[in-house]
């Protein structure tokens, strides 16, 4: 459990403002990807984000392109989780596959504000802060294994190894 500050945004935060298309087809290392995170939504974010911070947003977070960097750039920027009212389908998958926890919790989104400090307890499914405590449901079993393995690459490696042995 780590304390983190909230970066609060609205509905329909799309993949283009999370990670602009002009960077999508060039090979890029994680630190550079982190520098472009949320570039077209909040130019201050990449400069000021700290390890363990949390993004809190409205409905349909991550809508738009299938670009995986929209999830990985947030992880590389140090974000420990994204809390939203809902997630776009492909972003949801990408985040799980990159080991970036995504939490659907409308109550927390309505109550948390920019700069609030929160602690997330994944084993208890609980977000706590000054604004109160918020429960969130655990992920479906079908995807929990991927998160527990640390992402889809590790999960798949384990699967391949267990089949070979």
């Amino acid at each position: 459990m780590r304390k983190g500050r909230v970066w609060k945004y609205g509905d329909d935060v799309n993949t283009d403002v999370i990670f602009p298309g002009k960077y999508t087809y060039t090979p890029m290392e994680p630190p550079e990807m982190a520098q472009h995170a949320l570039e077209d939504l909040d130019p201050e974010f990449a400069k000021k984000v700290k390890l363990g911070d949390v993004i809190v947003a409205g409905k349909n977070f991550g809508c738009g392109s299938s670009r995986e960097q929209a999830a990985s750039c947030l992880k590389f920027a140090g974000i420990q989780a994204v809390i939203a009212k809902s997630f776009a389908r492909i972003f949801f998958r990408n985040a799980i596959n990159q080991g970036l926890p995504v939490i659907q919790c409308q109550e927390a989104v309505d109550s948390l504000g920019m700069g609030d400090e929160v602690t997330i307890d994944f084993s208890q499914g609980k977000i706590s802060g000054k604004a109160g405590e918020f429960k969130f449901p655990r992920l479906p079993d079908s995807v929990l294994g991927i998160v527990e393995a640390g992402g889809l690459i590790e999960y798949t490696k384990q699967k391949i190894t267990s089949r070979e042995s």
Partner: protein
Amino acid sequence: MGATFSEKILGKKAGEVVTVSPDFILSHDNSAAISQEFAKLGVEKIKNPDKLVIILDHVVPASAEKYALNHKLIREFVSQQGISNFFDIHHGICHQVFHEAGFALPGKLILGADSHTTSYGALGAFSAGIGRTEVACLWATDEIWLRVPETFRIEIQGGYAAGTFAKDLILRIIGDLGADCANYLAVEFTGAGAQNMSLAERLVLSNMAAEMGAKNGYFEPNQMVLDYLEGRAQLEFEPIFSDPDAVYERTFTFDLSDLEPQVACPHTVDNVKPIHEVAGIPIHQVLIGTCTNGRFEDLEVAAGILKNRKIHPSVRVLVIPASRQEYLRALKAGLLEVLSEAGCVILNPGCGPCLGAHQGILAPGETALSTANRNFRGRMGSRESAIYLASPATAAASALTGKIMDPREYL
């Protein structure tokens, strides 16, 4: 109780999770990045290389050394892995080339590392976008988990009102229902209005189903689709249809006959207004092309409006046929001549400036009117630019006046 198309093809009821093996796996300029993820898995060979379809389209030809390197890595990987379905930079946009080359087939399961993979629902396939790491793992294991989606049915009635097209319809649907209305869901386009649509029109709707958040956007394949696939299909196929008593999450009805031209305003696709509310807004650039509206039929409509006229001196007009086949059709029909005479810049088939990488980037303070599918802030260049989305007819009419213009004035 009957089953929907999605339930039938995935073999389970909505809400269940299935492990499936797709018929084809699409990727494009992101194939180098996928190959790097693939390398992490410690598997030497792709399990089923004949399922891969790789089409270079996003930044073609390479406009800078970094893009050239990206393409080079892909070509080397293709050769090393023996991938036969590789389409280099001269073919066109993946979502056009994929069906031209006969990979988009009724009743087939297609997954792609691109959100607009939904396009092939136009031919009766189940096709959905996924992420890069998932594609890398698919290359290695040939299996993936999918949740069987519930389905929205969108019933289309009536015939087109003058000056309106499939693009106006889908913008109206997205404007009315919202950009996340079909998140995690499947969409089926039905009704007489849908059955009467040409393949080009169906592709506009299925392509933009992604902008409703949908997993796929299906049309029942009819004789027109089967004729198109004659001599083109890469595999034998069996169309799959929803049962008459299938259970739908919701049904919506839209009537084509009371439609007027629609425009999606900055910076979301569901910020849609009828043309009379936005006519007169000055624009600096027009883009006619993309996987949504770069086909022969689209260029034909634009050329019909621009014939023997000149574009307004304050506007740049970029025309990008969706593929080399569509380019050749337009060339032979004299459409490219008409468009060039009018003052349009004809670019090579590809994604062009739609995703903001090259070929017509917007400066701060500039406004574009595009026939593409997305108008997110900064997508075509500067964060301080704006994008409006409309049909090729509205785009052509606006090119003549340098302002957003109702195409019905030029019919």
